[in-house]
């Protein structure tokens, strides 16, 4: 649970995206693309889920990437090499089903780009043709471009302000690609509106679509139901039934509302900066 490397991979308008490598030999042996871990920064901290971006069983390490958004991620971001986490458990959730789908489009938005990297690598290794679309606000906020370039056959970058790549949304590019070619799978991770639009576009062209959902969790082992989502009208627990689901069946509105259940507390606690060690 010790941090062996730390890198700030994006920093814009005071919001940082941080990459941590941690010593976690047990988890590194078992983690596959699609898995996540639960992290507690300190004894009084929350349990939060983070995707395993990379795992190396030889060095016994795993890589996590997160954006400093709430209190917990800010505490994590303040940790340094040599510091330990209070708790780290996993790998949790289902791994991505890795097989040959033919041509695959991966869509990553914001910090969600980190979550598509392991999937891109695994699917590429399984012989898929990988097209990746990355979306970010601007050039400064974009992460993992080089890594995804080498894991993809084709890479498109979309920025909201046009400061890099093309100006526009990831779904603009997705629709264009879908209108021109045949694809076996769309895999998207990012903000809810982005995943929703990607799923709608995929449905329009009758392409299978997977999304990795960011529901709130507590134990993350199927025991509390905090992360329940509706998929094709059926209640599922993101932690044990997901976190990947068929994007065309997700009740997005419900997920978005459930994710806001603690917004008040989040704002309150983030104003209490004494909880964050310098």
């Amino acid at each position, binding site marked *: 649970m010790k941090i062996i490397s730390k890198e700030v991979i994006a920093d814009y308008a005071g919001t940082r995206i941080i990459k941590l490598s941690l010593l976690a030999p047990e988890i590194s042996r078992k983690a596959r693309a699609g898995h996540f871990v639960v992290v507690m920064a300190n004894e009084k901290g929350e*349990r939060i889920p983070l995707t395993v971006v990379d795992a190396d069983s030889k060095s016994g390490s795993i890589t996590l990437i997160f954006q400093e958004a709430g209190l917990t991620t800010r505490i994590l971001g303040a940790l340094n090499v040599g510091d330990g986490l209070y*708790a780290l458990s996993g790998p949790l959730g289902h791994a991505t089903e890795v097989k040959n789908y033919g041509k695959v489009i991966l869509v990553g938005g914001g910090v969600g780009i980190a979550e598509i990297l392991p999937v891109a690598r695994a699917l590429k290794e399984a012989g898929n043709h990988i097209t990746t679309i990355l979306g970010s606000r601007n050039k400064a906020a974009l992460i993992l471009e080089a890594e995804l370039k080498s894991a993809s056959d084709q890479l498109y970058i979309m920025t909201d302000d046009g400061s890099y790549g093309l100006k526009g949304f990831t779904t603009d590019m997705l629709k264009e690609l879908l209108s021109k070619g045949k694809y076996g799978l769309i895999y998207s991770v990012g903000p809810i509106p982005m995943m929703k639009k990607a799923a709608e576009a995929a449905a329009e062209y009758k392409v299978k679509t997977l999304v990795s959902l960011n529901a709130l969790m507590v*134990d993350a082992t*199927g025991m509390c*139901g905090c992360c*329940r989502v509706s998929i094709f009208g059926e209640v599922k627990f993101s932690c*044990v039934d997901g976190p990947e689901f068929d994007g065309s069946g997700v009740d997005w509105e*419900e997920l978005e509302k459930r994710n806001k259940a*603690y917004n008040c507390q989040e704002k309150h606690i983030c104003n209490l900066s004494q*909880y964050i060690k310098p």
Partner: protein
Amino acid sequence: MKKEPVKVKEAPVEIRVGNFEEVVEGYCEQEALQEALRCLQCKNPFCISGCPVGIDIKKFIYHITRKDYRSAYFTIREKNNFPSICGRVCPAEYQCRKACVFTKKGLPFASEEAINIHLLERFLGDYGKENNLDTPAQKEAKFSTLKVAVAGSGPAGLCCAGELARKGVKVDIFESLHKTGGVLRYGIPPFRLPGDILDFEINYLKKLGVNFITNFLVGKTATIKELFDRGYSKVFLGLGAGVPSFLGIKGENLSNIYSANEFLTRVNLMSAYKFPEFHTPVNIGRNVLIIGGGNTAMDAARVALRLQKIRGLPLNTTVIYRRTNIEMPARRMEIEHARQEGVKFEFLAQPKEFIGSNQGSVEKLICLKSKLGKPDSSGRRRPINIEGSEFELDCDLCVIAAGLKANQVLIKETPELKTDANSDVIVNPGNMESSIKGVYAGGDIVGGEGTVIEAMGMAKKAARAILDNS
């Protein structure tokens, strides 16, 4: 002349609803003695047959009357490893006390006059703890090379580990959460079972040589097969029943509708009642409804009341139950404590639909009135919904305590582990061995939602079988 039962001291209502301190203070020596002297020492004691593990209740009460607390303590310990815990959480009024000769015939639970066996057990458990009494380890050389993996650190896992470690077996307990104790930690609130009682038992096991490995989810972090590959010759599964049931009604995924497990885990395990010092939040409302009639429902209701008090809201928490008071499966003491503290009850009401706001938070619960029909398979009268009897209740926070099912993570990762229609692990009832050779199971993962004492009974049997087959 029959003597009156000795009442146990309890924290005053107005103080206790504002904190999470233990409510029942327990008997002092004088009170325990007085209560023990009420026991008739029946020639054929029914109480023993009422205990799921057959504790010699008559004998331990006799020892109390002779002030031989040591012998009394060890009489319990022959059958029960954790009397301090069971004395606090056992539903005695449905077990030993119901069988007590002082209980009037035909009642669904013990009469008030029945001997307070649980309070005497608790007195002895705490006496043993304070005087460092414990069954001495009887380590046997032949077990010194034996390594056993226990999955889950709840009542079953702790009990099995203790039984094995006392014989010199090397035991590693794997716990998926960051803290040990399982349901005793995340489920039962500290005002019923204080953390230090649990810590004492766990520390004692550590002294015996039991090794606790937290943040390790057997099935995910390592499979059962991988545990065998690591040199464990036997595996015990004490996984528990932690999967919450929901009602399956419209609107159930609105915000501020919690499973009891989530609500209690946030408060008990994550200390959300101390937010923002602890970072895990929990919401509370002005009109809190708790659905269910079991101990978990009572726990959730009393936690909700405390959160209302701590946040400066008027106390307004109502339990919704589809039968009536008499059919509620909760311990009578919990129901009484809840009532004293101000929890309200709405009986013969069946939730039908939740109505939410535009923001997606719950605002109302629509219920149907019900009436009681003929007894069902549980022996309790079955609730029948009355058509067209809908009524609305204001509800800005709801906790659903509608039962729990077996934990599924390990089961799903282990197809060769046979399970029944309820997804509980199937075992040979004689030795608690599962369909996989060398893999034993006990507690709620086998029997479905049960009691701590039943879990311990199964764990002891499994430990015996592990020792016999090693």
